[in-house]
């Protein structure tokens, strides 16, 4: 049995169509035009224990709505969710006991209190045994390097420190599933890297299942083997990250350092993307041509000093998926 089962899940909202101007507003008041908005439209997927899954999509795609239905915040219009075989809508308290949740844009820490005091409250909320709590806090303090600021009021922490605190708070009760909604938003490179290492570690060491929602695709490429892409409330891609990138983005990029500058390339098998002095970037369809074939043809018309071949970029792939779905 999968740890997370999402089955034909839908969420509709009724919204009142606002009309322009004073007359329109008056008309909306007297005779409101109600419109059903499909925030999540018949999505299904399973997630196995220990998976790290990237759940991505453009703004307003339905990511947060799906997660909120998965953790029992919102009730679905139709379909079902089961976490460890239990429905969060019928047994919310039982389900959330095993979940850790981080909303990158909302805090669950007490603003005016020391970070450690928020942990103390969470210990009571989840009824964590004293020994287990002390062990977990010691471990989290070491891994997330909280020792320098665990006694500092939350309002005085930097964004990176706060996010480390949020992540630790979500792990106090040792949940088996972690829902992370944009956990690296606004963080600098070092803080992002620290967060990613922590997530990778808890997945590896504790076999914690992670569902990661982010707009930073570096998070996905570094952490996730599986990608679920949602757009306009529907799942448009679900599978192995590498496979999706390979399939969706047929191009590879070849970068050449030339002995002398060029302005154009005659080889019809490549598209010249960019020229910077003696450095050029060309794109080619790796399903049709091999890299060696392209290199030998380019070598015939230019004098190559150095070269590198890059796989398709995840950002290009995701952009392609979003746009393909819009067409």
């Amino acid at each position, binding site marked *: 049995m999968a740890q997370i089962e999402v089955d034909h899940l839908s969420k509709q909202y009724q919204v009142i169509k606002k009309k322009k101007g004073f007359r329109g507003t008056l008309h909306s008041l007297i005779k409101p035009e109600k419109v059903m908005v499909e925030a999540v439209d018949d999505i299904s997927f399973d997630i196995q224990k220990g998976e790290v899954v990237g759940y991505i999509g453009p703004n307003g795609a339905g990511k947060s709505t799906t997660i*909120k239905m998965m953790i*029992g*915040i919102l009730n679905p219009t139709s379909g079902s969710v089961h976490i460890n075989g239990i429905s969060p809508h019928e047994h919310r*308290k039982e389900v959330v006991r095993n979940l850790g949740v981080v909303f990158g844009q909302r805090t*669950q820490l*007490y603003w*005016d209190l020391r970070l450690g005091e928020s942990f103390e409250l969470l210990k*009571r*909320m989840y009824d964590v045994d004293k020994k287990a709590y002390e062990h977990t806090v010691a471990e989290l303090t070491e891994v997330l390097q909280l020792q320098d600021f665990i006694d500092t009021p939350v309002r005085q922490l930097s964004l990176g420190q706060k996010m480390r605190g949020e992540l630790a708070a979500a792990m106090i009760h040792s949940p088996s599933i972690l829902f992370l909604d*944009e956990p690296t938003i606004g963080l600098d490179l070092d803080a992002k890297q620290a967060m990613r290492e922590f997530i990778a570690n808890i997945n590896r060491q504790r076999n914690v299942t992670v569902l990661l929602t982010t707009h930073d695709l570096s998070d996905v490429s570094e952490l996730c083997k599986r990608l679920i892409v949602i757009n306009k409330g529907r799942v448009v891609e679900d599978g192995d990250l590498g496979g999706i990138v390979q399939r969706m983005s047929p191009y590879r990029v070849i970068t050449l350092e030339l002995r002398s500058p060029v302005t154009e390339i005659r080889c019809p098998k490549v598209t010249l993307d960019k020229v910077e002095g003696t450095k050029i970037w060309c794109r080619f369809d790796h399903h049709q041509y091999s890299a060696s074939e392209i290199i030998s043809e380019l070598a015939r018309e230019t004098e190559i000093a150095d070269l590198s071949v890059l796989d398709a970029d995840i950002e290009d792939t995701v952009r392609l998926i979003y746009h393909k779905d819009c067409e």
Partner: protein
Amino acid sequence: MKKIKHYIAVGYWQLKLNTLCNLQYFSYTIVWFFMIGIAMFSTFFVLKAILDRVGQINGWNFAQISFLVGLSFISHGFEDMFFLQNRFIEHNVLEGTLDQYLIRPLNVFFLFNTAHFNLVGFYDILPGVIILVYACNQLHFPATPYHIIAIVVITVAGTFIRAAQLIITGSLAFWTKKSRILEDTNLTLMDRTSSYPLTMYPKWFQLMFTFLLPLGFITFYPVRGLLNITADSSLPVAPDLLIWAPLVALAFFLIARAVFNYGLSHKYESAGS
């Protein structure tokens, strides 16, 4: 039993942490203490000036009305201490901040109502106690266990009736998205129905605040019974017996909890991130 202990532990910690939070802004609470004291005593002195001229209001003299005012301020203070957050349910609904309670393995109504302890409510209580003590002296109110328990019962019941009123109007935000303005009206309504004899208002008003919104039970009815003030016979029942106040408070609070829970589970939409 284990479950109750768990909830008590969480409630205690929320209370403790909130007190610490409040103490971070101690200078603000001191300013509030003086402001609220001035505001409350000015109400008292205006009332005294009026009653010095007219003698009585519907059979209630100044000392008896002071008794009402004192108890009204006290229950207002306790309501502010423990239930103030219900005035801001609108904000929680619009911002989606109830999410933080829904992700915890505990009852949301309990968590929400213990998550915001407001120390400044204590400063509302102090002027109330001073006025009540003054009224007791003037009335030669007997300090028997029954009379002391009666004051405690009226205070607790009044606090819960006030809280229920705030919760019900605040919870309207689940349907209307806006309820803050109603909460401001609530404060005026509760203070005017609990600081003065309800019988000074028209009969329909009395009926409404007895049977529809039972604000007459915050102080008026139980105090009328306790001080043996002749009952107005224009209403079909005489709800002066002390027992009515806690019973009404319990029923009203349970209704309020049901409204909150229904709104949360059926109408709460969280908010976009």
